[in-house]
């Protein structure tokens, strides 16, 4: 990790309220870094969708499982990791929500939104045994180095 890099990690309960908590936490970081209001909205939505995915599909809403959220900041990027304790999944197995036959599906749009709103998106096997969603947003050049807020300096693991 470079001297300017920062790391924030929290462990969240498998609970609906964790979705709001994760969104709020990442929004505060994104705002402190200097992302525009529109970009903050996209980042917040992506975090929300990532944690919903972990809550619902990964951990299957089981309260004994945890959701692991981590944010890595460098001068150039904000990288968000969402890990669950489920069985994992392959991106190629996720149905395309824009396909005609899926338009009236009541679920399955979260991955699409994350892919659309972030600069990079991937799903890999996570160290927690389930899936790890990795999302990257490039930090606007004018905001580089603005990592000094209390929120983005937080480093310890916190149990929510």
């Amino acid at each position, binding site marked *: 990790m470079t001297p300017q890099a920062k790391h924030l990690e929290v462990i969240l309960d498998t609970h*609906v*309220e964790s*979705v*709001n908590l994760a*969104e*709020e936490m990442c929004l505060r970081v994104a705002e402190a870094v200097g992302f525009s209001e529109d970009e903050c*909205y996209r980042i917040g*939505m992506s975090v*929300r*969708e990532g944690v*919903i995915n972990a809550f619902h599909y990964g951990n299957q809403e089981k309260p004994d499982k945890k959701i692991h959220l981590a944010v890595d900041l460098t001068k150039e990027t904000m990288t968000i990791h969402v890990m669950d304790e489920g069985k994992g999944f392959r991106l190629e197995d996720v149905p395309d*929500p*824009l396909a005609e036959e899926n*338009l*009236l*599906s*009541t*679920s399955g*749009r*979260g991955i*699409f*939104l994350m892919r*659309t709103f972030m600069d990079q998106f991937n799903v890999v096997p996570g160290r927690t045994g389930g899936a790890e969603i990795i999302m990257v947003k490039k930090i606007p050049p004018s905001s580089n180095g603005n990592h000094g807020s209390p929120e983005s300096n937080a480093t310890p693991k916190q149990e929510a």
Partner: protein
Amino acid sequence: MASLFATCREVGSDNGSVAIVDLSGRISLGEGSALLRKTVRDLLDAGQTRILLNLGDVNYIDSSGIGELVSGFTAVRNRSGELKLLNLTKKVNDLLQLTKLFTVFDVYSDEGTAIRSFR
């Protein structure tokens, strides 16, 4: 984060009454989605199958909220009714465009026009 609020009113039209649901806040996982689901189901249970959702004060929808809109649309259609949308904010409009749901929902920006469009 603000939750969702919903108030229902009924207006007459040439073809019968239309239930207009004025929504404000967030339609997202949890209370927001649940309230929307309950509101639409209550209207259907009361025999109302012509529903106009006014989203003018809805500033946020996530995938769960989108799913609930689709679920309501399907439930109403299964009863041979119509569920339409009124007054989309830019964020909601953009999301419906992105997800191609603009091709599914009838969307209006004028309440009178929306009411007259019901069969």
